[in-house]
């Protein structure tokens, strides 16, 4: 009898295994029909069938499917990826962010070594540990202290300006903040130029700006263009500064470097607004689907003629970035024929500038023929949910927590330029234990009772859910 792959991959239930055993015994004349629970033979057959099910359901399908991308999973998939495609799976990464320590008047100085300080965010309970040594000055501030999450994972996504950070390892008189400025810091620069940007103004909303140097020279001589939120590049010519960029209150000034050519043709400068306290976003182990996608895309790397899939694989395979990249969109630029926009995002949306910079450097060192790949994160769009929901009085607290988790998972999962469905929000809220009903007419996304579409063919957006949710909870 020929055994098919499908048979090997099909799980067996214990009932099926037990009945099969009884069938064999019955055929040999055993009185199988008279064995109640507790009888000797039945108990033995149940024990044997439970072991059989474990083997048939867990081991055989994993072994049989381990050599096929469609059927391999986790450990087998990772082995297949490494052995056949020369791809290591991206391991989980830990969040790294900047915290400011402030000593009250008369407190300090407090010297510390790496690992001495443990902080916790009150809202999430997440803990972080300092990465390097330093000293909190007497009655002063120590900004820019790097802290690393206690464990790797995407759940370490605490907001900036938390206001609720405490030292587990106490330093009397010291308070903590994790401020995010108006702009990401530093401006991420890729290229050989020695110049930099100074940012100012009062930015309006969330944006990502990419500056491209179109011709070399000093500030005021080099011509440059900008791309706002993934829209087509706009040339500003050979000017040293621009105010109120795109009408969004962003001021940019080109500042010459100390020596050499300040601004070199092809150099890029990337920044976003508002800034973030996070330097590296924590992420989970690479998912099976992502690893399978990279394996399939591996074939494109064998060709001298690049495909979009090739750049997708590069973006997801950047060393040190790891599994921070969970979404990639590759699109030819609508205006410049050799430019390829590579939009990347992580599990919590837009990636930190440093991460985007790392991906850009990795991709830029591997271009095909005349391609000019430009890596960027989507602009983050704040999503505010509202509506009146009715919940059981005794389950209010758990329902509220569950609703926040469900909405975060859904909105984060919509992806770059996805659509947030009003009906799906209502459906997910109704599935929460304790929820009695929802006044559907009151449910809105950003004050509009309609689906919310992110981005379009020339702009790239990812959603950022406003927490706490703006729902009105009525207990019944």
């Amino acid at each position, binding site marked *: 009898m020929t055994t098919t792959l499908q048979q090997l991959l099909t799980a067996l239930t214990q009932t099926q295994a037990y009945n099969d055993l009884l069938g064999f015994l019955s055929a040999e004349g055993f*009185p199988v029909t*008279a064995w109640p*629970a507790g009888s*000797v033979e*039945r*108990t033995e057959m149940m024990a044997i069938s439970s072991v059989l099910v474990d083997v048939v359901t867990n081991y055989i399908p994993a072994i049989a499917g381990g050599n096929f991308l469609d059927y391999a999973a986790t450990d087998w998939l990772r082995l297949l990826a490494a052995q056949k495609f020369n791809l290591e799976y991206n391991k989980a990464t830990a969040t790294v962010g900047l915290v400011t320590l402030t000593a009250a008047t008369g407190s300090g100085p407090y010297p510390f070594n790496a690992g001495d300080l443990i902080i916790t965010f009150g809202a999430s309970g997440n803990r972080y540990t300092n990465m390097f040594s330093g000293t909190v000055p007497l009655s002063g501030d120590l900004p820019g202290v790097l802290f690393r999450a206690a464990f790797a994972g995407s759940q370490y996504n605490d907001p900036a300006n938390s206001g609720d950070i405490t030292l587990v390892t106490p330093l009397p008189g010291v308070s903590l903040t994790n401020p995010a400025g108006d702009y990401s810091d530093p401006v991420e620069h890729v290229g050989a130029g020695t110049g930099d940007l100074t940012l100012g103004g009062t930015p309006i909303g969330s944006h990502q700006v990419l500056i491209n140097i179109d011709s070399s020279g000093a500030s005021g001589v080099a011509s440059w263009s900008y791309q706002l939120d993934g829209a087509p590049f706009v040339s500003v010519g050979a000017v040293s500064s621009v105010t109120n960029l795109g009408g969004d209150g962003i001021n940019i000034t080109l500042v010459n470097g100390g020596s050499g050519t300040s601004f070199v043709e092809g150099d890029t400068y990337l920044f976003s607004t508002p800034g973030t306290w996070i330097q590296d976003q924590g992420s989970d182990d690479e998912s099976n689907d992502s690893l399978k996608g990279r394996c399939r895309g591996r074939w494109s790397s064998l060709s001298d003629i690049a495909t979009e899939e090739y750049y997708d694989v590069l973006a997801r395979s950047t060393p040190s970035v790891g599994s921070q990249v969970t979404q990639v969109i590759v699109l030819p630029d609508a205006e410049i024929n050799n430019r390829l926009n590579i939009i990347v995002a992580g599990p919590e949306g837009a990636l930190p500038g440093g991460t985007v910079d790392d991906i850009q450097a990795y991709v830029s060192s591997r271009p095909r023929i005349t391609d000019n790949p430009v890596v960027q994160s989507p602009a983050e769009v704040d999503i505010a949910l509202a509506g009146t929901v009715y919940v059981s009085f005794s389950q209010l607290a758990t329902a509220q927590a569950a609703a926040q988790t469900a909405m975060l998972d859904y909105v984060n999962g919509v992806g770059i330029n996805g659509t947030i469905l009003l009906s799906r929000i209502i459906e997910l809220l109704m599935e929460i234990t304790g929820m009695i009903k929802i006044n559907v007419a009151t449910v809105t996304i950003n004050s509009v009772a309609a689906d919310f579409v992110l981005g379009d063919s020339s702009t790239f957006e990812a959603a950022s859910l406003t927490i706490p949710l703006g729902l009105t909870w009525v207990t019944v």
Partner: protein
Amino acid sequence: MANYGVDTSRILDRALVSTLVTNPSILIAQWIARAWQTAKGALATIGDDPNYGLAGGGLVQYVNRRLSPNEIAAMQANLEAAALYSPEVLSINVSVSFTQSGSLTINASGQATTGPFFLVGNVNSITAEAVFNFLQGP
């Protein structure tokens, strides 16, 4: 489907030579003896009936315990309940006593659908090993 038929003679451990049991009163008495030595829910680990067995963890739970009269009465009720789980057992009367050495003696008699059954058990206070004698009805 009748619950009587043929089964292997066994209380707990496998014997060197398996013996078939066909006497209905001994079949049911052995079933009861096994139920008393199986913690309720233990069969669930192999996917079988989770309600089979003795609540609280089998006969060994009573070994070397100081039991008040009320606790002894509760123990007897527990043993009877485990036995009555089989629909073949119509009634059962259990009495327990402790020897000077602390060993537990159980006397049980009852009516099954095919007639009376009897069993006597002794649980050693040192080894917790249970030995049962099954008596055929008159």
